[in-house]
């Protein structure tokens, strides 16, 4: 009886089994990269802003975070500065710099600058800046080295796994309250002894219930 398939069919069959396995590995790798990859999560991606504001420059001048983000210690939202805040200096210095033209226009037309948001969590996540600041979580822990960002970018993925990592192990990330706004903070003693001490002192609980953030 004539063969239904050519001899090569055996090789094709084996190759397709290998191919299928390869495809599955490849597909899971792609999914991994897509959902965790820095680029897809906008990490270190610079967005266009209405004015070329450099955090790096202003932080290094010695301006405190709270000079512009005024409500960070008292409310959920850290706050974005009104144009008047910029003008508190720039009415005196760099008054005719081209770079500051949008800021002057904003003041003249009484129209706020529309910054493009870089760090955000979805609407179904309840996030409050003040409690994190008051319990000794540094700006740097989520926002990265803002003092090294000419234009600001997102430093961390801000995925739920990022939040939970700290909520489960706050002692690894906690710092003294007076160091919260420090960039490039180094603990003065080992974090493994300082961390648990601060957790106890600030009465930090491991808030990992769903409703802590999803209210």
């Amino acid at each position, binding site marked *: 009886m004539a063969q*239904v*398939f050519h001899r090569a069919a055996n090789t094709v*069959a084996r190759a397709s089994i290998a191919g299928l396995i390869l495809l599955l590995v490849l597909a899971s790798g792609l999914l*991994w990269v897509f959902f965790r990859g820095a680029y897809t999560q906008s990490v270190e991606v610079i967005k266009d802003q209405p004015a070329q504001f450099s955090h790096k420059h202003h932080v290094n001048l010695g301006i405190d975070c709270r000079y512009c983000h005024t409500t960070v210690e008292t409310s959920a939202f850290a706050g974005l500065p009104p144009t008047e805040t910029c003008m508190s200096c720039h009415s005196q210095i760099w008054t005719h710099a081209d770079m500051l033209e949008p800021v002057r226009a904003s003041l003249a037309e009484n129209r706020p600058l529309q910054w493009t948001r870089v760090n955000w969590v979805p609407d179904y996540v309840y996030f409050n800046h003040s409690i994190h600041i008051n319990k000794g979580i540094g700006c740097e822990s989520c926002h990265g080295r803002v003092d090294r960002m000419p234009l600001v970018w997102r430093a961390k993925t801000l*995925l*739920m*796994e990022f939040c*939970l*990592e700290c909520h489960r192990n706050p002692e690894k990330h906690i710092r003294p309250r007076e160091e919260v706004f420090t960039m490039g903070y180094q603990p003065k003693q080992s974090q493994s002894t300082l961390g648990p001490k601060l957790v106890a002192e600030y009465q930090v609980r491991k808030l990992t219930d769903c409703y802590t953030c999803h209210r």
Partner: protein
Amino acid sequence: MQESTHPDPLGRPPVIEAGHDYSTVTGKISDIVLRQSAPKAWFFGFGVGFLLLMLLNLSISWLFVKGIGVWGVNVPVAWGFAIVNFVWWIGIGHAGTLISAILLILHQSWRTSINRFAEAMTLFAVACAGMFPLLHLGRPYFFYWLFPYPSTYDVWPQFRSPLVWDVFAVSTYATVSLLFWFVGLLPDLATLRDRAISRPVKMIYGALAMGWRGSARHWHRYQMAYLLLGGLATPLVVSVHTVVSFDFAVGVVPGWHTTIFPPYFVAGAIFSGFAMVLTLVIPARKWYHLEDVITMRHLDNMAKVMLATGLIVAYGYFMELYTSWYSGNIFEMFTSWNRAFGPYGYIYWILIFCNILSPQVLWSSKARTNVPLLFVVSLIINVGMWMERFMIVVVSLHRDFVPGAWGMYVPTFWDFATFAGTIGLFLSLLFLFVRGLPMISISELRELAPVGRTAEGGE
């Protein structure tokens, strides 16, 4: 198998009728697929199945468009038809696994004529069942949250919940059943390949047969693999419905929270599964003239299994009543009273009639060999087992502890349409299977052919 070479000590009728040898069984079963056109009943059955399948498409689309509110479910009865149907379908599947795995290991050669059919039924029933837990999710597009995959939430499914165990139980069950069925099909696919007339048909069966040549080495490995799969599938007969029963038994709802649930569910599953096998096999053997292969001995044996498991189910019902009285717990006692005399009381009495009273006719050997009667009893049991699941799911939920939280569940048109639709899916798949694949295992049937045993000299 031994039975084909030794005379039966009990003088039972043979598993298959005399007059068959290797070539006649091969021809009989493979010709149904390759050479005969489908009987009129096939077109009727497939037509009905296909129409209902379209109804399933419609009702699922409507469900996805409008959301879960198209069903009658609401607090306190959040598990309505979807879970009733899920448990019903998954239970039906169990007979297939029992026949294919446990009876294989116990060398019950009568399984041969019905195992392929029952395994196919298992697969299709699991396909219908598996749909419901996903459909009843409020956001069905998040169904994959049930699987433990490395998500960016860094949160795993709740492994302490039986609902998660269910995912594993049912998906394992579906995988093992599919493998078992396919491995069993291999030699037959090769037979079809060899007997097919046109080249495209040869190629299709040839590809599916995966190069089966029937060499001694092939057979050796095949039988080892088949036995191993049988061993793998055997615990599943018990474990799958046990886990399904945990969905209820682990909850604290009166009427659910009892330790009798696992054995009682497993017995009920086999009971309903055998009823469904009979419901399907009785018309099939008539339409395809298979009375000499699926003999009265098969029907008789299946009726006996039904009677035995039916008695276990009856014991379960009585024990539920007894324990609720013996517990002295007013909520348990009320649940028992409410089942029989509450607003859904008629369900209870239908159930008692269908599952306890009607199988009692099977004590009589006359009834077990009366084919129309068997068919009717099997249908009644199918209905009864659906009612049982309705009683467990809905009647327990609708009145629990506090009267202020009581409510009624009224299924909507879409509840019924989805259920009827899965029957359509089941029928469509089954009729396609009967048309395209050998519905009885040819290779195993050859072992049963009474070659060398026939009194009239034989071969």
